[in-house]
């Protein structure tokens, strides 16, 4: 597995940016959980808590021209991509000022301006979309990367293999990011895959692959940086298997009968946020004041996001059928 850069090689600014990036996601989702119990957020809510290092580390090497495809567990990716927290929170509320006009909710965040293509709730369903986005770039002779996030569970779906083969066969610039958190809902990786090394599956489809410690934001950043450079240089796909762990339940409905408290506690010791702050402290890159300030920023951002969501309007019922298809008038143009 890729090992982390030494903290020492980090500038204070970048170190703080990474820590802030993860912390704001953590606080945002803790607030979401609270709002869910209050009934302000409904439907399914899948928290990313524990996995923040992946979205934050990955986004560092992706530019505005690159595209993102994610799953229903995508709050962290949306925030790390720079989507407005208020628009994301409003979406969770189902308000018209949400990033999907309130229609998608937690599982379907979209942002055309940031090339954030969603938000897919059928496991494996986003992978072919990523192939197509990369194919469009190749055909249009644009040098871009399409980053596609998905979980270990998606690896069992045929579409995973089909899509990797297409990307390799057609030499498409897709960065496959497999968030291996060891569980597909309640099914442990070893209980859904006979061969648990996902990089082997990628290679069997002709896709280069590497495993990375997904709890170490520096390791992720480094690995994604190199993978993205490979993709930009060759136009070919690359897969990173990111070892991580979900600290919370799969969704708010999950009683977590399938794993022990001990196992969860064990993993929490590898918390990407605590881990980084400790290393930065040890490396003299983070003071208590710094941390306090970062925390304060994060909390403020969350409160502002909630305020934006609270202030949002509901989409009028009359608009229910709007944008099912483009109205004829609009087509004329």
């Amino acid at each position, binding site marked *: 597995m890729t090992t982390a850069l030494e903290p020492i090689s980090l500038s204070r600014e970048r170190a703080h940016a990474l820590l802030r990036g993860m912390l704001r996601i953590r606080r945002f989702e803790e607030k979401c959980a609270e709002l869910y119990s209050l009934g302000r957020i409904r439907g399914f809510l899948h928290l990313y808590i524990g996995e923040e290092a992946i979205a934050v580390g990955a986004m560092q090497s992706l530019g505005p021209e690159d595209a993102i495809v994610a799953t229903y567990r995508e709050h962290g990716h949306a925030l790390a991509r720079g989507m407005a927290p208020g628009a994301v929170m409003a979406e969770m509320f189902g308000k018209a000022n949400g990033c999907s006009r309130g229609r998608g*909710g937690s599982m379907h965040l979209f942002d055309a301006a940031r090339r954030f293509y969603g938000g897919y709730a059928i496991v494996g369903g986003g992978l072919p979309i990523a192939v197509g986005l990369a194919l469009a770039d190749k055909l249009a002779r644009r040098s871009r990367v399409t980053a596609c996030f998905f979980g270990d569970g998606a690896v069992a779906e045929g579409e995973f293999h089909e899509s990797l083969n297409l990307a390799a066969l057609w030499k498409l610039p897709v960065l496959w990011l497999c968030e291996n958190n060891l569980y597909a809902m309640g099914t442990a990786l070893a209980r859904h895959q006979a061969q648990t090394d996902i990089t082997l599956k990628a290679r069997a489809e002709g896709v280069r692959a590497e495993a990375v410690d997904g709890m170490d934001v520096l390791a992720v950043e480094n690995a994604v940086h190199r993978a993205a450079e490979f993709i930009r240089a060759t136009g070919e796909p690359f897969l990173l298997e990111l070892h991580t762990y979900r600290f919370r339940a799969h969704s708010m409905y999950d009683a977590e009968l399938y794993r022990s408290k001990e196992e969860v506690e064990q993993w929490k010791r590898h918390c990407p946020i605590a881990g980084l702050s400790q290393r930065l402290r040890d490396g003299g890159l983070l003071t208590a004041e710094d941390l306090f300030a970062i925390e304060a920023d994060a909390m403020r951002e969350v409160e502002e996001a909630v305020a934006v969501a609270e202030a949002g309007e509901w989409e009028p019922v009359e608009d*229910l059928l709007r944008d099912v298809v483009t109205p004829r008038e609009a087509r004329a143009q």
Partner: protein
Amino acid sequence: MIRMTYREAIRTALREALAADSRVFLMGEDVGRYGGAYACSKGLLAEFGEERVRDAPLAESSFVGAGIGAALGGMRPIVEVMTVNFSLLALDQVVNNAATLRHMSGGQFSVPLVVRMATGGGRQLAAQHSHSLENWYAHIPGITVLAPATVNDARWMLPAALREPDPVILFEHAMLYPMEGEVDESGAGVDLARAAVRRAGRDVSLITYGGSLWKTLDAAERLEKQGIDAEVIDLRVLRPLDMAMVFASIARTHRAVVVDEGWRTGSLAGEISAQIMENAFDELDAPVRRVCSAEAPMPYPKHLEDAALPQAERIVATVREIYG
């Protein structure tokens, strides 16, 4: 009579089936360790073991196909596809294998497979998790399609399905799992041949199934207050349809409204309506009307989801349009 929830009724039926017949096993995503996405199989892994309560990887097409193969091999598989939304990934196996093998092989092979799946909207799960596609399954020759709407049917349709020599698809409406109801311990009167009159009435026949039954009964009560006596028919079996009971009802009421959570165009309600015209045209005092879901991907917010789904108000309003 004992009271239990729809979920408990299904769990009771599953436990009974596993205990009664060693050929029966349950297979699907998270049916074991997790206890089932809707907790229907909670406790069954501990009771029957991993061989017979089998957690499957996310591979709908292959584990449904494996259910077909296991049925060909003499077992009585119960495959749980977590929800109808994911069943599209396995539809090829149902249409091209499960439904064709008996006929295509000249009657040599039998596929005694039961596939269970949750269906329907109402929980704010948005566009990809709120489908109601029972009509598509009801279109496929070679399979039987069930939609238990009551706790008693949830309890007894599964064992009846397991007695069938051919594939059966069982739709459990996700909104019904917590619903409490009476179960007749004898199982008497639950067959896979007949629809059921859930409320007798003289003025109009309201025909529905699954989760919409309760909204329709609610509408019937409101109509009563307005002096309209509605009969409510629960189709129960979506293929083959028991239209005889529907025609008999219309011969009494001369008016009908079909309530169906599917999107209107191409809905099962359309099929019911067409068959009513074909067979009871002269009985009709008014055109058959439909109350279906709005033709849009399901939106997440409650107010929009409510507007998209059939509701008692809309049923009442529709009945009033054709009545008097």
